[in-house]
């Protein structure tokens, strides 16, 4: 039986200070021209936590609004007022920066994070009221140090300072004096990724009926690499995050594929569950500080707030068929292969039309496509266009070339089978996965029959190949056949014993 999509969680951490100090657009600019007007005025373009929460795409990401509701608002969305301003959502939360720094300190198990004592105490008292943070984890925040000590560390050693509201509130130390793979910069990025992954895991467990102890395996699929100089990228974020989230019976591993990582990881998870190897597998990822404010210069030039001010994360639970949740149809899998080529039509055909054709389906037989769901508010002012819309137009154009629709029906195809984008531009985060939470509900409500999830990755960025990459799979309504019941040895013995007793009685009856 097919595995099922049992739940999904989505989190954001509002991190404006990390935009200034850790986003690569800003750090590059600081290297080239530290006195630039862009850097001098950057803080004026950053949003407050309240503004970040009241942003329509963010409220959609955490599940308080549907993509269809978001589409009802005129773009650009940063100019619109949202009815929703909640921190908590159906799928997760938007965490403020001070609490997120606290969570980073909690996720540090090598005494590399030093927080100023007053800041640590304030954050600890805030996190005490967080329903998902285990009080035992808060002990990590009892080791605050005096501010002069933090400042001394910043002066004397190569550390990454931690800022909140523009003030130094702590720092992250290097884990090795020479090893660049364990530098303060790398440790910082990795702890941010780990912490946002952990928060996603906590929400997933908190919002599904499956207990933490029941999770067998976790696949982490971010775009960071942890390891030392002898095994850079050795891993394992999955197990590190699982430890923090209390998944005591789980092990795991990391899967990488640039933005396509989550789709690859979901295929792995679906196969592990369908084969019966594991019953509950989580696919999860934290976010990237590098991509904060990536398009900041364009946003500032156009008098917009910097919209890339959140670290994002997600977690998805793939489980054995429960007879209710949507199934992952692993018989319809699209693959961009080595021989596919790099032209857009070859790429999009390999992921959509070709796998569908094999099972006699047309492009229009998919109710909704979940593609690269980047928020157009972020990408359009940067000259990158409306990414999801461009993907839908390509699928529609392919349908027209295949004579499945008329060319004049292209716009209708896009609106009928597409969605607006709402996800932050954190690489792997917008790629196919942001719609899973909504898709699960709509498939269970019988509003949709089939959804195709597409993940695409720009492998050439790693300079190891010029190839592009991508995989796709189908979510479908549950066939309703119910959970597979495995027959235990004990129950077989009991059945045989009962039959033998009946047979013996029958013989006795014959004799009587």
């Amino acid at each position: 039986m097919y595995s099922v999509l049992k739940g999904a969680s989505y989190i954001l951490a509002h991190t404006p200070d990390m935009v200034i100090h850790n986003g690569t657009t800003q750090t590059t600019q600081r290297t080239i021209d530290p006195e630039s007007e862009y850097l001098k005025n950057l803080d004026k373009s950053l949003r407050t936590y309240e503004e970040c929460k009241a942003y329509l795409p963010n409220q959609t990401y955490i599940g308080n609004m549907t993509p269809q509701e978001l589409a009802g608002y005129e773009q650009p969305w940063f100019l619109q007022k949202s009815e929703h301003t909640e921190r908590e959502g159906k799928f997760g939360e938007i965490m403020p920066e001070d609490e997120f720094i606290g969570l980073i300190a909690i996720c540090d198990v090598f005494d590399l994070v030093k927080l100023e004592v007053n800041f640590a105490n304030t954050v600890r008292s805030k996190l005490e009221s967080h329903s998902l943070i285990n009080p035992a984890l808060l002990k990590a925040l009892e080791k605050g140090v005096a501010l002069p000590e933090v400042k001394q560390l910043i002066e004397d050693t190569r550390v990454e300072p931690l800022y909140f509201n523009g003030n130094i509130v702590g720092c992250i130390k290097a884990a090795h004096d020479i090893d660049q793979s364990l530098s303060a910069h790398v440790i910082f990025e990795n702890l941010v990724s780990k912490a946002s992954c952990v928060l996603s895991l906590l929400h997933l467990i908190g919002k599904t009926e499956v207990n933490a102890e029941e999770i067998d395996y976790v696949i982490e699929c971010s775009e960071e690499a942890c390891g030392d100089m002898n095994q850079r990228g050795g891993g394992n974020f999955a197990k590190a995050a699982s430890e923090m989230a209390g998944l005591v019976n789980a092990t795991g591993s990391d899967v990488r594929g640039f933005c396509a990582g989550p789709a690859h990881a979901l295929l792995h998870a679906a196969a592990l569950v369908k084969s019966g190897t594991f019953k509950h597998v989580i696919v999860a990822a934290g976010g990237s500080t590098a991509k904060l404010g990536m398009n900041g210069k364009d946003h500032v030039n156009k008098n917009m707030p910097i919209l890339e001010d959140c670290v994002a994360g997600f977690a998805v639970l793939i489980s054995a068929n429960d007879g209710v949740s949507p199934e992952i149809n692993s018989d319809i899998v699209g693959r961009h292969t080595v021989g596919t080529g790099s032209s857009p039509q070859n790429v999009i055909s390999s992921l959509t039309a070709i796998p569908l054709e094999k099972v006699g389906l047309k492009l229009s037989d998919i109710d909704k496509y979940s593609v690269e769901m980047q928020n157009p508010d972020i990408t359009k002012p940067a000259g990158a266009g409306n990414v999801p819309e461009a993907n839908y137009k390509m699928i529609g154009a392919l349908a027209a070339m295949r004579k499945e629709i008329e060319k004049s029906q292209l716009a209708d195809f896009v609106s009928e089978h597409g969605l607006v984008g709402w996800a932050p531009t954190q690489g792997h985060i917008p790629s196919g996965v942001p719609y899973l939470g909504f898709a699960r509900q709509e498939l269970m409500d019988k509003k949709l029959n089939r959804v195709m999830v597409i993940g695409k990755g720009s492998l050439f960025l790693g300079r190891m190949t010029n190839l592009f990459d991508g995989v796709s799979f189908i979510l479908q309504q549950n066939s309703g056949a119910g959970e597979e019941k495995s027959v235990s040895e004990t129950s077989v013995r009991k059945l045989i014993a009962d039959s033998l007793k009946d047979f013996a009685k029958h013989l006795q009856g014959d004799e009587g």
Partner: protein
Amino acid sequence: MDLENQKRVKALAEQYGPENIIVILGAAEGEAAGLAAETVTAGDPTYAGPLAGVQLGLKVYHVCEPEVKDEVDSAVYDEQISMMEMVLDVDDIIKEMSTIRDEYCKY
């Protein structure tokens, strides 16, 4: 334009002579195509990359412009580009590219 690509364009222009180079773009929008064209003609408008302040003035076309399309085997063009041609705002791209070429192209 990506800093690494700027470096490669600069190196190739130096190696083969700028008059012998044609840059073919595949950007999905007029604005993005225009920015890339500006970078290889008038210099990097963001002043971030190796082409900042370097006016190479190279010949530059988008793959959907007729000058390029007419040079390509129609069957190959159909297989590789026609779907994107249907999706892109080709008129807008041509307008942007022509403006940049008229102003900055030296060859």
